[in-house]
């Protein structure tokens, strides 16, 4: 049981940071920026380069995250602001195109191989019967701290209130004295930071190769939607639900039910489980887990 919980949390870690980043920008500028998953790959590569350049990990991580945040802002100013004038579908396709270009850059710079941070690895410890590695714990800590920080920004600072206001009604936000463009860029920056941290925590636990972004896209998307679009922290719940479903499907021995010793649902059905869950969920909660708007005419 403990192991189940733990596996769920760890899998949720894979998704949560990037999903929150996706959902954060989505709420503000109303299009799913699929290039975000590439930002996390960028973050991971950058972090490793910085570490190789001799920086201690504790410096390399935040530095890389900040740089990716800036990069995200840059793309927003140069590209997405312009595309969004014409609508979200166009911005979506634009972000796909940007993803392609970014993966070309990765391909040129890093080739298709997998990279790891230069970190010592030890066998898992036993913790209340569950197996846990040091890096799982440290990345758990990083994730909790950054999500906590983001939540604090969102709910307890002026910037957070302004983000939510801008997301809801940009015109009125401006009329309340909010520099909406600045707020949007701040959010984009934060989303870049979160995405980069997401990528780096993945790389700390395992490895990162250029294809990771593409592979992560759909589960991250699903988590963000499940949480409720435009509800940034809902994405955390979305990630937890999805990973619980996946873990349940793959970690449960259905053998006894069928009179066999072992019968596991194929691990390759884990994703199927999460997608099926998503569809079911949407049937019963057609607007995601959390919604912040009442639909009335």
């Amino acid at each position, binding site marked *: 049981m403990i192991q189940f919980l733990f596996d769920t949390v760890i899998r949720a870690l894979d998704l949560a940071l990037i999903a929150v980043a996706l959902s954060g920008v989505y709420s503000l500028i109303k299009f799913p920026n699929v290039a975000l998953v590439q930002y996390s790959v960028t973050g991971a590569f950058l972090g490793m380069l910085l570490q190789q350049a001799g920086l201690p990990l504790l410096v390399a991580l935040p530095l890389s995250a900040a740089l990716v945040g800036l990069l995200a802002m840059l793309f927003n100013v140069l590209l997405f602001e312009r595309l969004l004038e014409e609508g979200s579908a166009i911005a979506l396709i634009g972000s796909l195109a940007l993803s392609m270009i970014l993966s070309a850059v990765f391909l040129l710079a890093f080739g298709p191989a997998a990279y790891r941070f230069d970190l010592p690895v030890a066998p898992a410890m036993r913790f209340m019967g569950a197996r846990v590695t040091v890096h799982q714990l440290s990345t758990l800590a990083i994730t909790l701290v950054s999500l906590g920080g983001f939540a604090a920004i969102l709910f307890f600072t002026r910037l957070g209130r302004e983000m939510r206001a801008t997301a809801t009604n940009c015109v009125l936000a401006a009329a309340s004295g*909010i520099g909406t463009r600045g707020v949007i860029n701040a959010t984009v920056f934060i989303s870049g930071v979160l995405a980069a941290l997401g990528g780096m925590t993945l790389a700390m636990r395992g490895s990162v190769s250029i294809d990771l972004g593409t592979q992560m896209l759909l589960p991250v998307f699903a988590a963000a939607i499940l949480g409720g679009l435009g509800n940034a922290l809902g994405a955390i719940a979305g990630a937890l639900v999805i990973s619980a479903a996946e873990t349940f499907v793959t970690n449960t021995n259905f053998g006894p039910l069928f009179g066999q010793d072992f019968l596991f649902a194929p691990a390759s059905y884990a994703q199927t489980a999460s997608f099926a869950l998503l569809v079911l969920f949407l049937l019963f909660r057609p607007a995601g887990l959390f919604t912040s708007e009442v639909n009335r005419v």
Partner: protein
Amino acid sequence: MIEASNIRAGYGDGPDILQDISMTASAREIVTILGPNGCGKSTLLKTVAGFVRPRGGAIRINGEGAETVPIHEKVRHYGVGYVPQTDNVFRTMTVTENLLMGARDLSRDTRNERFEALMTQYPTLANKRRRKASALSGGERQILSLARALMAGPRILLLDEPSAGLSPAMMHDVFEAIGRIRDAQDMCILMVEQNAYEALSISDRAYVLSLGKVALTARSADLLNDPAMERLYLGGDPDA
């Protein structure tokens, strides 16, 4: 306080909606803008506020050129408060949060003080503090929007049909309140209205727009007593 001269403005690459508009409004004054639907009243307000950039002419606020100052700067520098005609609340936020959005730069004490004052003034809102604005009725939104603008303690107030959708009692209250704050806070109020009779009774001067031009400008009292005006703008008897 506000001085617009020879304003031309429009949307995108469309035609000029405002063709040549000059108007002024000063402190301690309520100026009402009247005119048929689609003549450009809201556009004028949006141009003064800074949502629409004028294609020609000048807008001066407190004597400073303000044509290109974006709205959020105007809010901060000149204390502009704006109540849009439609889509006038933060739908995903609660009533309380909506009001706090109006109170960006206030100290905690002033904020709480104003908040409580507004809550007592509009019990309709007080009952629904924690309700999401998207659940509110049309009239409740209208009041919320006005209250949000008042939270900031503006020096210049731009109101786009503040009384639309309000019950007679509420409309009366709102106009009375507007009249009171002009006097109490030396405010400059520019107000678009279709309920002309009530609006004129509290305002000092009025502009009547027609097709993007100023058709008439006069003191409110004079307009109220003008029988031709009565027929044209205040609604006559359909059977007559």
